[in-house]
């Protein structure tokens, strides 16, 4: 695994840590916490700090150091976690998120001077905060230009110069015995820009000093390979440094062998696999022969204390798998599903469709498919954990007090959905706070709590995930929405609309009722884009609103995009799949329900509403298809641009199909969303409803033989 991959892993762990911290803050805010809650936050920050140091992200490391110092004072009881202090801790968390993002994107480091000052003040003075880094603390750090920050060690000298020389390990009578660490990078430790000296620097910051540099493996100048690492070090660390901290330095490298022992006796034994701590991260270079290390450390009275630090291998509950490998598995399972379907069809043709083995295979295949898709599933927590910060920022921007209630954050959904739901969800949250909730004064006047409530929930429902964003605000002012829609020319002044239809006007492009345009919302773009994004995920959005009580936006999404429920239809000799999520109803029309539209078009009367008839054959270039709606089937679908009645020859089946990308396997085709392979081995194209219905608007529909 190269350095970039390991660094990528570090940032993934940062994200997970930050999400965990956000959850911990929610608990802390509720006052329902114990010592472990703040311990967990501390550990997250500590872990980020360790990785930041290993990868040379100096500013991130310096910032986490100060943050960690404050958290340490809270967890050891030196500071009471008052609401004011919690605000600082949470504010510092937001800044930490920015720092992590800056390190990941190699972008400008956030201006953290003010926050560092707050952390320092909260910690009760600069001496505590700067104790370990000395003058490289806040003042020095914040004055450094952002341009010097990167994956190198530009600031190394400054920080190195400030590392206080550690006390000689073990000279204090009651101090714990010092540590002896043998660190030997493997020959390939310099690959991909890795720099073992950064780790030495980390150890120096823990108070470590190199007592021996082993150059026995260093070849002559003629023979040396400049890209190989040859040196190894024996480092003395003070006994006060925790084993966890020392090992954390090596958390993100596997290109080294390390052996950590309590420096209990003057003559340390050669590190062996039975030593208290022995980590052989790689075997490219043999561990160095241990030289006798002179040490003034007293012998350990209690041998158990030496063994106490023995690492307990963590329970292997999770593993990280490259996403490409997972996608390959998903793809193979998709192929298996198709093959199983083809086998079933072939056996049915041979009158063997009822055999129990086939039924077993079908069950197993479906179980395998569901299990595989479950691997790709991620909890909505990944998305939800970002919401508290959005709310905090909005509170500051719009001057409202908001309480966020989250439910069902562990509900799982496919990774693709998780990745793409963030933007529309953020917009709905911003909309709820900016438009939905009244001002604090308004709420008091309405007899409500001054603090508005925004609820975010996720739940599985009928094989789909339903995400709801609701607020206890003023609800949709339908009179105002209607007036605005008339003003914008979206509806005619005399249009008769139901409450639901009026509510849905807010999804019209260019619609906005915000009295003033703010940074938050009100620019007239957004809700239409939200709906478009949701529909692109195969989902639907609906509104429930009661004036004065609040609004609720429900998003119903498929659990995965790799399979979809579709209606299998034929048009001429061809077979197509229409996504079930778009289908409203299907019917065989009579002459009375069809009305001529212009010269060659027709409208279907669906209980008083007129829907344009849309012969798919004309738009897909199929010659021998049925053109007479009374002899065909009309499938009423709901697309981006309203409803349309698709004219097809017959409905053959309704089933779940495995979606294959047409772009990846062939090329993009307008009006076709993808393809699938049917049980008979034939390829069926999946109709892109939104693109096709968009065409149905400006184009007159030919209807050659309509009654």
């Amino acid at each position, binding site marked *: 695994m190269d350095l970039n991959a390991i660094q990528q892993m570090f940032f993934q762990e940062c994200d997970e840590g930050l999400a965990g911290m956000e959850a911990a803050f929610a608990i802390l805010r509720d006052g329902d916490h114990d010592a472990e809650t703040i311990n967990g936050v501390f550990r997250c920050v500590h872990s980020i700090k360790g990785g930041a140091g290993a990868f040379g992200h100096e500013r991130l490391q310096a910032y986490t150091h100060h943050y960690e110092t404050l958290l340490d004072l809270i967890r050891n009881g030196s500071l009471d976690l008052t609401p004011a202090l919690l605000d600082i801790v949470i504010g510092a968390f937001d800044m930490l998120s920015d720092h992590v993002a800056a390190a990941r994107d190699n972008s400008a480091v956030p201006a953290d001077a003010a926050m560092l000052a707050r952390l320092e003040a909260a910690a009760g003075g600069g001496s505590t905060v700067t104790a370990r880094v000395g003058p490289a603390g806040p003042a020095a750090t914040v004055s450094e230009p952002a341009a010097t920050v990167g994956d190198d060690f530009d600031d190394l000298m400054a920080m190195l110069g400030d590392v206080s020389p550690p006390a000689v390990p073990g000279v204090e009578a009651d101090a714990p015995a010092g540590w002896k660490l043998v660190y030997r990078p493997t020959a390939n430790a310099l690959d991909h820009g890795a720099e073992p*000296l950064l780790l030495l620097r980390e150890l*120096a910051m823990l108070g470590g000093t190199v007592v021996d540099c*082993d150059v026995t493996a*260093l070849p*002559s*100048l003629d023979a*040396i390979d400049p890209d190989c690492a040859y040196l190894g070090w024996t480092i003395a660390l003070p006994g006060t440094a925790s084993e966890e901290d020392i090992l954390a330095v090596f958390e993100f490298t596997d290109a080294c062998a390390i052996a950590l022992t309590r420096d209990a006796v003057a003559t340390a034994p050669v590190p062996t696999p039975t030593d208290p701590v022995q980590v052989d991260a790689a075997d490219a270079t043999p561990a160095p022969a241990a030289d006798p290390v002179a040490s003034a450390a007293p012998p350990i009275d209690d041998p158990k204390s030496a063994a106490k630090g023995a690492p307990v291998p963590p329970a292997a509950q999770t593993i990280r798998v490259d996403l490409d490998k997972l996608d390959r598995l998903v793809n193979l399972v998709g192929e298996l599903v198709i093959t199983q379907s083809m086998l079933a069809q072939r056996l049915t043709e041979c009158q063997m469709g009822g055999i129990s083995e086939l039924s077993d295979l079908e069950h197993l295949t479906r179980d395998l498919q569901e299990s595989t898709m479950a691997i790709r599933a991620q909890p909505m927590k990944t998305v939800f954990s970002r919401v508290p910060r959005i709310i905090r920022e909005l509170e500051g921007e719009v001057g409202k007090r908001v309480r966020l209630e989250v439910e069902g954050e562990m509900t799982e959904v496919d990774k693709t959905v998780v990745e793409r739901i963030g933007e529309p969800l953020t917009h709905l949250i911003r909309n709820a706070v900016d438009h939905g909730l009244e001002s604090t004064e308004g709420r008091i006047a309405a007899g409500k709590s001054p603090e508005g409530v925004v609820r975010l929930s996720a739940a599985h429902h009928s094989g789909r995930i339903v995400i709801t964003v609701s607020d206890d605000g003023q609800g949709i002012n339908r009179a105002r929405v209607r007036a605005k829609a008339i003003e914008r020319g979206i509806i005619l002044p005399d249009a008769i609309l139901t409450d639901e239809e009026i509510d849905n006007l807010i999804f019209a492009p260019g619609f906005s009722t915000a009295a003033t345009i703010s940074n938050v919302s009100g620019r007239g773009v957004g809700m239409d884009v939200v709906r478009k994004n949701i529909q692109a995920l195969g989902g639907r959005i609906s509104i429930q609103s009661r004036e004065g009580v609040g609004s609720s936006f429900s998003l119903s999404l498929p659990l995965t995009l790799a399979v979809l429920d579709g209606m299998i239809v034929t048009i001429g000799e061809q077979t197509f799949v229409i996504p079930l999520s778009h289908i409203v109803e299907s019917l065989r029309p009579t002459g009375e329900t069809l009305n001529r539209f212009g010269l060659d078009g027709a409208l279907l009367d669906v209980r008083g509403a007129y829907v344009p008839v849309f012969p798919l054959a004309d738009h897909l270039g199929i010659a021998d298809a049925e053109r007479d709606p009374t002899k065909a089937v009309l499938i009423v679908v709901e697309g981006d641009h309203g409803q349309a009645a698709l004219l097809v020859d017959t409905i053959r089946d309704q089933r779940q199909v495995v979606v294959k990308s047409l772009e990846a396997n062939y090329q993009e085709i307008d009006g076709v969303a993808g393809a699938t392979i049917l049980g008979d081995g034939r390829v069926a194209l999946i109709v892109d409803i939104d693109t096709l219905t968009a065409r149905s608007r400006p184009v007159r529909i030919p209807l050659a033989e309509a009654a």
Partner: protein
Amino acid sequence: MPMTLATILDTPAAGPLRQALKQALGGAEPLLIDGSGVERAGLACLQVLAAAGSAAAQGGTVFRIDPAGPPLTAMIALAGLDTLVPLAGHDAPAAATGHHVPVTA
């Protein structure tokens, strides 16, 4: 023979540094290296300098980084190589008779 080190002594700089040191160590003249302009130095270059220092000691050639500059001095000290890579004010270690020399900081 004077020689000046590059500003950035990262891993890619180690190969050219090795070549330059091999050429410079060809003669019997003392090799004084100007390291005052070094801003960054990584393990790869320090190893090459250590190997050169060892070769110089073996051949009885004077080898010294003079002047060194704080960044390079700090990195050499961090790596525990201040004996094998002599800095201004120090001569090559008398005890260094070959390149397989254990170094104690």
